């Protein structure tokens, strides 16, 4: 029998109806996105992930999340893959499967709110079937534009409520958010609601209660429960969610499971079956996919988090599964991995002072703010300083129940400095630039602490509107020109979208791919990361349907910063020159300003000055149109003339020097006009 019940091209209404008609539950596979984000720093490459696609095509998933979150950004920065290439590949290999993205409302796939016209432009052009959209503030207003564009395109909008467990986020609070979502989407017929338990803190009781309450109010609303496994208790909660009425559950391959991702697909299927809840899953195909992962997952050991094991303390510090590896990575790079326990402790206190949801970009703001505080105290006072700030916050939050006036004068002063060095994004957050905070703005002392004397004015600047209303539109044509200037040619539509999301990283990506071509798409992960070690090591792949092979002959020794590598490319021996970081970089000064005269072409500067007046030296006055130097290149002379009346400030090259195009020749100072 076929397990395929929804396919790309169906209308949202049809998809929702199909899910309702399922006797039990269906799975959403996070194997191609969130699994990799949570435990492997988003480094799982499409080269490997695509091996799962043929199984996915038969498995009967509701959808496969393969896009969005941080996968987009890490893709262009680290894996050097474009999200558009990934979609194209998966569309070809698993045409039966709905492709799902995770999008951060106005923050999209970046970390800051984008202007409306950018959101519209991009969402219209990304070929995704299921748009799971969340707000780290549960500010449903911020979702409006994405919802509108997605629904207008006839794709499925899946609004998510950011979920955590805290006294102030009770069922009543979440129901209010669901009300807003249902109002925004015009009912429950064309959407699926996701409960995004991104840290993995929901309990059997809390989740059952919430789903039950939602189902009572909106019996026809389809619910998808998304839960990380960080606390070690995920599977019982998934079972409880299914029993309470969730129709869709997020899972991943058992062999991908570590500590911060999602529950194992085969295990969840087994326990649901035992509980008498039917699962729409081709178990045979799932088993093969689970097995397939083993073929390549060991190539990613380097990408795994250094802290291994479950962490039930997540219920306090609330760091989301998707943020764990990147936080560890930053701590490791910054040399403060040993401060992680203290930072997590500070987070568990901080999140009671400034209340929002720890998920992108909130989780980054929390992380940078808290790791900044801990680092600052560590630098000043060592371990004792770290203990001191933890004690201060404990006393304030736990003992004094955040009654600022009840603190000692000295402690008050300390707290009033706490956020002074907080990142700009923290300050933007409490000024309302991301939207309204879910349960009100922080206390005044937080503003005093962040802004010092100007705090009252800053509070006046605080905005209550949606982030959508706060950012002016960008001039897209100007942006496109800027990109094309950078890459020196016309940009494709996809390149332009990458640029709109992450300008600097997109340019790096485009330049990388111009230099190294399809290397990220065709090389096995071992070769991608380590290259070849032994003569005879070889890769084989096809391009445009023709076979290619690259084989190592030898790697030479370094000499003057150059290593020669001999490879056989389709049996033809070729020598490749590799510059090592030690390679001497002869920096060529380039003309960049109007007062700087650069070489129009490469050649020899055979004359400075002109035959009439002879050579020139700094301090000389030259007149507009006067020849000031001459370049010879392949027997052709190229006069360089003064563009305006000027005094020569500097002559940057020597006579008869070889210069390259654009190299700085003269610095001029325009003569003042009388």
């Amino acid at each position, binding site marked *: 029998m076929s397990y395929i019940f929804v396919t790309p091209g169906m209308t949202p209404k049809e998809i929702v109806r199909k899910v309702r008609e399922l006797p039990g539950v269906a799975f959403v596979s996070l194997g191609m996105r969130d699994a990799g984000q949570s435990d492997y720093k988003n480094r799982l490459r499409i080269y490997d992930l695509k091996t799962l696609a043929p199984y996915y095509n038969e498995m009967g998933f509701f959808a496969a999340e393969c896009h969005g979150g941080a996968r987009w950004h890490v893709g262009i920065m680290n894996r050097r893959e474009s999200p558009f290439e990934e979609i194209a590949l998966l569309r070809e290999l698993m045409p039966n499967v709905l492709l799902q993205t995770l999008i951060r409302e106005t923050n999209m796939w970046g970390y800051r709110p984008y202007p409306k016209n950018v959101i519209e432009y991009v969402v219209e052009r990304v070929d995704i079937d299921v748009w799971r959209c969340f707000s780290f503030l549960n500010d449903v207003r911020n979702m409006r534009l994405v919802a509108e564009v997605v629904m207008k395109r006839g794709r499925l909008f899946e609004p998510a409520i950011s979920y955590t467990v805290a006294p102030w986020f009770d069922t009543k609070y979440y129901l209010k958010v669901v009300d807003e979502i249902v109002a925004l989407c015009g009912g429950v017929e064309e959407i699926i609601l996701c409960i995004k338990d991104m840290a993995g803190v929901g309990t059997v009781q809390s989740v059952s209660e919430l789903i039950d309450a939602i189902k009572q109010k909106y019996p026809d609303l389809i619910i998808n429960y998304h839960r990380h496994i960080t606390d070690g208790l995920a599977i019982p909660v998934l079972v409880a969610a299914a029993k309470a009425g969730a129709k869709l559950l997020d899972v991943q391959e058992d062999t991908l499971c570590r500590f911060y991702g999602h529950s194992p697909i085969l295990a969840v299927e087994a326990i649901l079956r035992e509980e008498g809840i039917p699962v729409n899953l081709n178990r045979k195909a799932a088993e093969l996919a689970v097995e397939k992962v083993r073929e390549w997952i060991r190539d990613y050991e380097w990408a795994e988090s250094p802290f291994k094991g479950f962490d039930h303390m997540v219920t306090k510090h609330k760091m989301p599964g998707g943020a764990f590896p990147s936080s560890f990575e930053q701590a490791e790079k910054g040399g403060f991995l040993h401060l992680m326990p203290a930072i997590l402790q500070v987070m568990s206190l901080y999140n009671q002072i400034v209340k929002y949801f720890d998920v992108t970009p909130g989780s980054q703001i929390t992380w940078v703010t808290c790791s900044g505080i801990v680092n600052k105290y560590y630098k000043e006072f060592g371990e004792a300083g770290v203990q001191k700030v933890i004690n201060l916050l404990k006393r304030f939050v736990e003992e004094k129940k955040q009654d600022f006036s009840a603190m000692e004068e000295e402690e008050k002063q300390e707290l009033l400095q706490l956020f002074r060095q907080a990142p700009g994004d923290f300050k933007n957050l409490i000024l309302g630039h991301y939207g309204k905070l879910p349960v009100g703005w922080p206390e005044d002392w937080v503003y005093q602490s962040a802004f010092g004397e100007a705090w009252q004015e800053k509070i006046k600047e605080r905005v209550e509107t949606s982030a959508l209303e706060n950012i002016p539109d960008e001039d897209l044509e100007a942006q496109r020109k800027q990109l094309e200037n950078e890459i020196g040619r016309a940009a494709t539509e996809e390149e332009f979208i990458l640029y709109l999301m992450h300008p600097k990283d997109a340019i790096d990506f485009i330049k990388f791919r111009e230099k190294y071509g399809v290397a990220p798409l065709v090389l096995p992960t071992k070769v991608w990361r380590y*290259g070849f070690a032994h003569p005879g090591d070889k890769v084989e792949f096809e391009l445009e349907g023709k076979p290619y092979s690259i084989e190592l002959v030898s790697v030479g020794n370094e000499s003057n910063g150059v290593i020669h590598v001999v490879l056989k490319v389709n049996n033809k021996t070729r020598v490749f020159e590799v510059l090592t970081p030690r390679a001497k970089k002869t920096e060529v000064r380039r003309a960049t300003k109007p007062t700087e005269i650069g070489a129009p072409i490469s050649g020899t500067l055979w004359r400075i000055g002109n035959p009439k007046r002879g050579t020139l030296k700094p301090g000389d006055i030259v007149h507009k149109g006067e020849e000031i130097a001459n370049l010879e290149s*392949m027997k052709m002379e190229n006069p360089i003339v003064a563009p305006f009346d000027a005094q020569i400030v500097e002559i940057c090259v020597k006579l008869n020097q070889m210069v390259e*195009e654009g190299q700085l020749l003269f610095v001029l100072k325009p003569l003042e006009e009388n």
Partner: protein
Amino acid sequence: MPVVRDIRKVLIANRGVPAVRIMHTCRDKKIKTVAIYSTPDRLAYHVFLADEAVHIGEAPPHDSYLNMEKIIHCALEKKCQAIHPGWGFLAENATFAEMVEEAGLIWVGPPPQVIRLMGDKIKAKKLAQKANVPTIPGLTNVQSPEDIRKWMTEEEIIFPILIKAASGGGGKGMVRVDSFEELNIAFEKAKSEAKKAFGDDTLLVEKYIEKGRHIEVQILGDKFGNVVHLYERECTIQRRNQKILEEAPSPSIDENLRQEICYTAVRLARELGYYSAGTVEFLLDPRTKRFYFLEVNTRLQVEHGVTELITGLDIVSLMFDIAQGKKLPFKQEDIYPNRHSIEVRINAEDPRSFNPSFGTITRLEIPQGPGIRVASGVYEGADVPPYYDSLIMLIMSAGADRAEALRVMDRALSRGLKVEGIKTIAPLLLSIIRHPEFIAGNFSTRFIEEHYQELISAFREKTPEDEVLKVAQYIAEISALGPQSWM
């Protein structure tokens, strides 16, 4: 009566493509070859191809390929009977030709006095006028920009005008001027370039014919006064006044005009007492269908190959025969061109900016297949030094008609040729032969300027062969350097 003198060994006073071209025919004719080379050319292709090679001097041309005494000395020392100058360098240097003959060597080229006469553009023009060959309005022996101003007023000449070196050729020392403001700098530039390229800074100025077409006639004469033409070539596609694409027959003229131009060229050659190979260049005004004499190139032309392809003759071989005192083995009516042929010049230049691009050729694949002829001055791994002409290869195609020749050329450029390590103008050439206006035959010497944006935007996308080398470069880097921090 000329004496038949045997050439068994020849010194080729050139490098790169012309040297290689001549050596091919020498091999056919069992004439031994002696190459000369400058220091940076020590491992150049023409050195390998020759039977013997002599180091001639340092990189600057006047120390090496223009060093007349030394070249003649080498030829004598190596017991050569002749010197072939190729094109460029000393090919049109009458003094050198005389020195060669005075040294008792055979000069494989036209009579030195004809070279001298035609090398002086002013005298050449006067002689043409005398022979009833139409010429462009102009002023000879220009001393200062003032002379030009005066001439323009008197003769009611309007811009643009062209300042040229009296002894020039090949676009060097040739400057187009569009306004009085540019005149002074242009004059100086032409003067200085002329001095540098030809050792003579005498200038002349002419009216510039807008949208003119460049048509030239290949002539061939023996020492017995027989002169024939091998029909015309169209060389209108130029950049910076240098030809980059030539074809034969010309698509710009009809049969009547063809006969008229060709016989005009023969008439002039007879008047000159010309022997060996030479070319009479004309500018065709496409509006009036009138043609004007430009100059006589007293040497083998770069583009002689297209004529060889349409006539089936080997012009270099005939040059040797004529130099040895043999009679032309055919008459005018024996020559039947029955193909269409196109040549492109692969210059080591940026195809967008035409800036020279020198360095090592890291990859070279040469086009093959029916209808293709290639003369390459380089090989994979060769260095292209910055001191000389940027021409690295000639690619020619032939077919029954122009459309077929274009198809073959398209294959050669898009599927055959691969050059890496340096830039070439190949993408531009491919764009040109695919341009509808070029295909339709509607073009002038300003074609590239007029269609620049379209030509540039049609530069071809990547091929899998290029891609795989990029992948290999990546593997090489990671294999040598290990995992990278950006990963």
